[in-house]
């Protein structure tokens, strides 16, 4: 499956392109916007800092891509 969002993409770029990703990631405990601005770094780096394992990162990323595809389709 071709991923819309890959793990090396910067959070700022994800949120600019797919603002709805913020809601999904927030529910997973991944806070992407602090002080009104996206945090620096890639999704993988940020999840790693939050203690996610590589397996969890890969799984969450697949779910995020599904979420974005559905949201885009509904638009």
């Amino acid at each position, binding site marked *: 499956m071709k991923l819309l969002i890959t793990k090396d993409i*910067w959070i700022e770029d994800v949120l600019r392109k797919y*603002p709805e990703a913020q809601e999904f990631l927030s529910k997973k405990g991944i*806070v992407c916007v*602090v*002080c*009104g*601005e*996206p945090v*620096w770094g890639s999704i993988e780096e940020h999840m790693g800092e939050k203690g996610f394992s590589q397996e969890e990162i890969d799984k969450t990323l697949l779910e995020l891509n599904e979420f974005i595809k559905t949201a885009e389709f509904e638009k």
Partner: protein
Amino acid sequence: MPNSKLVVPIPENEPILSYSPGSKERELIKKKIAELKSEVIEIPLIIGGKEVQTGNFGECRIPHNHNYLLGQYHKVGEKEVKMAVNAALKAQKKWANMPWEERVAIFRRAAELLSTKYRSLLNASTMLSQSKNVFQAEIDSACELIDFFRFNTHYAMKIYERQPNSAKDIWNMTESRPLEGFIFAVTPFNFTSIAGNLPTAPAIMGNVVLWKPASSAVYSAYYLMQLFKEAGVPDGVINFIPGSGAQVGDPVLADPNLAGIHFTGSTPTFHSMWKTIGGNIEKYKTYPRIVGETGGKDFIFVHPSADVDALNTAIVRGAFEYQGQKCSAASRAYIPESIWVKLKDKLLTTIRELKMGDVENFTNFINAIIDKAAFNSIVSYIDYAKESSEAEILVGGGYDDSKGYFIEPTVIQTPNPKFKTMEEEIFGPVITIYIYKDDKYEETLHLCDETSPFALTGAIFANEREAIIKAKDILRNAAGNFYINDKPTGAVVGQQPFGGARASGTNDKAGDIVNLLRWVSPRTIKENFIPPTDYKYPFMEEE
């Protein structure tokens, strides 16, 4: 001037213009807003004084009318970061060697240009691109930034005049050298004044700077660059490199010439930068100075002796001005039962009166949230409170992003002092209130101190002196800026130096001499007028 000892005059704070109906400034700002909206501008990088285009664009949109495009900006890439480092290093020697009074003159001129010619431009661009009402723009992009320029140049003189004692036949001197390398200034969206201060404070002290403005505030930042140029800042001293945070940050932080960072923004980003610098520590030519101001979970604490009307105004202004998007905004309040029964109706009535909308309608108190991502983030907290059995939304709670990113000023009440919105920074127009029993004052002060990792601002409302003394004592480390019977926002340069400790930052007070001291590396020089000519000391002589 080689044969003069110059004095930078003691500054005064810039007066705040009223923008009342019929005033000249009101007419000028309306004209400038219309002028800015009449064109879509293209914003280049500015490196070594030259405009650089990358073709990789970001957009500047009006938050309260997000279909309206103000401009497109070129985003920096790794190649341009290297160009900016080289341009800064090329400008370094000449700038560092320029007599300090000449550098001071440039930034004093910047203050006067901003007070006059640039005032309406900077205010109008801030109103449009950051959705500030005219008063919020005036106290920020005009008054506070003018104050930063005037006070920082005065403090620079104070630093240069500090000299050590000398014995009779020697002369000791301190030279306050600029740092060896460049400074990386990373600025937030919420204050144009901070955007102006973070690159210029190190520059006043002779440093060269790479400046990454927030992606959501590139528009007003670009006009600041025009101000700097007209004031006389030489090419290459401040290099303007907007772009995605990590795209700019990663190559900059890896450069061996990094001598310091001057940051305002989020705690996770500051942690990430600090860790990166730690990981690179062996690469640098000098230990980088790390200066950062990050988040807050700022409180208003109320004693049963408090004045209810003053408290009401402080909560409304402290929590909701600029939609709560100030690091210092009140976002939690601890109120005794006896005050709450008198305050509740008054507070909710006042909040329902607040008008929300476009900044061009001057009767609006509330405007829009900066962008979609920030809007979503705030909404997620409001929805969480709506769904929780531990919280009740007393007023507000509505939101609408169809035209602009509007969120109603919202008050949440919770019986749980550790409820999510009592602990976490929201950075929006949301305050959570915890009601405590009147006889639990001291216990609740300890609770306030221990609830959040942040320690930026806080306020105590009380008329009994003993209660104030107790609050000052127990909350000593809970806030870097502590207010008594006043809202926790609105620090004024030269009066309430701003910054906090704990997770809120390094507390190197912006606009104060302690901040400028971070941008110099003192060299001590001893000159001996009569050097000894014999290695032997008197104690060595034969008896």
